[in-house]
C-alpha cells in the first residue's frame, strides 16, 4: 500500500489535510443547518414585516389606485405635502402629543411609586402585584368598552363622581361630545391600563439591588428618601429610560381605545394619527395618503425616541 512507503512528514501532512477537510465539512454542515433553521421563520418575517415596511414608503410616493392591474402614477412627495397642510392630521398629532404628555409621566411616576412601596419585605406583595397588573393583561377592546360605559353621558359612574362626590360640575358631563373631555377619558384609560406594566419593570430592577446595600445605607443613618435617591435610583436609571422611551412610542401609537370610544369624532375632534390613517385607508380607500400619514408618524416618533436615547446615554457618560 502507498501509506507504508510514505515518509513520516508526508503522513503528518496527509493527516492534517484530512483533519482540515473534516473540519471544513463540519463548518459547511453547520452553515447549512444555520440556514435551514433560519429560513422558515425569516421567510414569514420578511414577507409580513420587511416587505410591507418597504411597501409603505413606495405606496406613500404614489397615487395608488384600487383597481388591480391599473397603473398607479408616481407623485413624489405630494402626499406628504398634503398631510403637512391637512388641519385634521395636524390636530391628530396634537391630540396624540397631549395623550402622551398626560399618560407617560403619570405611568412612570405612579408605577415607580408602587414599585418602591412593593419592594422589600411585605406580606401579600404578590397579591398587590397581581391586582395592579390585571388591567395590563385585559384586552384593549374590553377595557375600551368598559371606560366608554363608565364615561357615558347620563348618570354614569364618572358623572356621579364628578357631580355628586367632587362637585366639579353642576350637571352631567357629555364626555365624548367635546374634544378635551373625551381625550381626558381616553388618557385616563391609557394610564390605568399601563401603570401595572411600568410598575413591574421598575420592581424587577429594584429587586436586583442587593439587600446588603440598602441595609448598609440604613445603618449609616440614611432615611427612606435618601436611600431611594442614592441607592435605588441609580440602579433603575436604565430601566427608567427604557420605560420612558417605550411608553412614548406607545403613546403616539394609541389606536384601539380612540377607535372604539370616539371613532375620532365628533367631527374629527379626537382624531389621533392612527385612527386618521385607518379611516383614510379603509373608509375612503386612499391607501397612499394613509401610508404617508403612517410613515410620518413612525418616522417622527422613532427619530424623537432615538434622540431621547442618545440624550440619556450622553448624560450618563458625563
Amino acid at each position, binding site marked *: 500500500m502507498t501509506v507504508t512507503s510514505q515518509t513520516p512528514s508526508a503522513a503528518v501532512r496527509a493527516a492534517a489535510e484530512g483533519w482540515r477537510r473534516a473540519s471544513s465539512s463540519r463548518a459547511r454542515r453547520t*452553515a447549512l443547518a444555520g440556514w435551514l433553521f433560519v429560513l422558515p421563520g425569516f421567510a414569514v418575517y*420578511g414577507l409580513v414585516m420587511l416587505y410591507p*415596511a418597504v411597501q409603505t414608503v413606495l405606496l406613500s410616493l404614489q397615487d395608488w389606485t384600487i383597481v388591480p392591474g391599473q397603473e398607479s402614477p408616481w407623485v413624489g412627495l405630494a402626499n406628504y405635502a398634503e398631510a403637512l397642510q391637512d388641519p385634521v392630521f395636524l390636530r391628530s398629532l396634537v391630540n396624540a402629543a397631549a395623550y402622551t404628555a398626560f399618560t407617560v409621566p403619570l405611568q412612570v411616576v405612579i408605577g415607580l411609586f408602587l414599585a418602591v*412601596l412593593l419592594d422589600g419585605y411585605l406580606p401579600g406583595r404578590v397579591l398587590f*402585584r397581581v391586582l395592579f397588573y390585571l388591567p395590563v393583561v385585559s384586552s384593549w377592546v374590553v377595557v375600551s*368598552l368598559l371606560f366608554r360605559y363608565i364615561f357615558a353621558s347620563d348618570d354614569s359612574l364618572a358623572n*356621579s363622581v364628578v357631580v355628586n362626590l367632587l362637585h366639579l360640575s353642576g350637571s352631567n358631563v357629555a364626555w365624548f361630545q367635546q374634544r378635551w373631555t373625551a381625550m381626558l377619558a381616553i388618557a385616563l384609560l391609557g394610564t390605568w391600563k399601563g401603570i401595572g406594566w411600568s410598575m413591574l419593570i421598575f420592581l424587577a430592577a429594584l429587586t436586583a439591588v442587593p439587600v446588603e446595600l440598602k441595609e448598609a445605607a440604613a445603618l449609616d443613618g440614611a432615611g427612606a428618601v435618601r436611600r431611594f435617591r442614592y441607592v435605588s435610583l441609580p440602579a433603575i436609571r436604565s430601566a427608567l429610560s427604557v420605560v420612558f422611551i417605550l411608553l412614548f412610542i406607545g403613546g403616539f401609537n394609541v389606536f*384601539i381605545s380612540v377607535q372604539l370610544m370616539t371613532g375620532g369624532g365628533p367631527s374629527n375632534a379626537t382624531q389621533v394619527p392612527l385612527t386618521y390613517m385607518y379611516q383614510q385607508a379603509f373608509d375612503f380607500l386612499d391607501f397612499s395618503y394613509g401610508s404617508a400619514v403612517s410613515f410620518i408618524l413612525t418616522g417622527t416618533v422613532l427619530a424623537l425616541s432615538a434622540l431621547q436615547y442618545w440624550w440619556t446615554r450622553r448624560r450618563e457618560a458625563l
Partner: protein
Amino acid sequence: MRRTPRDRLLLALRYLFLGACAVVMVYPFAYMVSTSLKSRTYVLSDPTRLWPDEPTLDNYRQVLTAEHFPRYALNSALVAVASTMLIVLLSSMMAYAFSRLRFPGRRVLFALIVVGLTIPTMMLIIPQFLLARDLHLLNSLPGLVPFYVGTALAFNTFLLSGFFEQIPRELDEAMMIDGAGAWRRYWNLAMPLAKPALGTVVIFSFLGTWDEYAWAVTVLNDTDKRTLPIAIALFQGQHSTSWGLVFAASIIALVPVIAIYLTFQRYFVAGLTTGAVKS
C-alpha cells in the same frame, strides 16, 4: 432587623397607599362584573352601588346561547393556538441559529430582526392588507395566522436568543463530540433548558393573538368567521343599551386570560425583565 414603632408605622402607611391604589385599579373590573349581573331595567340605577338588588345570571345565559358566540370563542382559540405553536417553533429555531450556529449572513439577518423590533405593527396595516389580498388570505381565519406569526417573530426571536446565549457552550460541544447534529442539540438540549423563556413566549403569544382586534376586524367579513374581540365590539353596537350583555360577553372572554395570567404570572416577570431591563 428589629422592628421599631417607626418601622411599623411605615409598614402601615405602605399598606394604606397600596390598598387605596388597589381599590382604584380594581374598581372598574368590579363595576363591570356588577353590571353584568344586573337585569336590563336595573342597569342605569345608582351607578356607585356595586352589589345589585337582584343579581341574575341572565346576561350570561343569553350570551352563551346567542347564535354565534360559542363559534367566535372557538375561532379565537383555534387561531391563537395555531399561531402560538408556530411562533414558539419558528422563533426558537431562529434564535438557536443566531446564538449557536455560524453561517454566512448571520449578522445581517439578525440586524434585520432587530429593525423589526422598532416598527409598530399598525404602521404596516395598509401594505399588509394589500399583501393579504394578493395572497387570497382576506376573509379567512387560517389567513390570520401567518400575519400574527410574522409580526410576533422579531420580539420573540430577540428574547430567546438572549436566553440561548446564556446556556454554556461546553454542553453543546459535549453533545457535538457524541455526534449530535444541530437539530438534536436544539431540540434535546437548548429547548428543555429554555423552558422559562419559552413559557414567556407562549403566554405573550397566546394572549396577543387571543385579544388581537385591529387586523382581524380589517380583514374578516363573514359573520361566522369573527373572532371574540370583533364579536364583543360589534355586540356593543347592536345592543347599545344592554351593557349587561356586553360585559357578560367581555368577562367570558377575560376568564381564560386571567386564568393563564394567574397560573404563569412568574413567567411574566422573567420575560419582561429579560426584554426590558437588559437592553
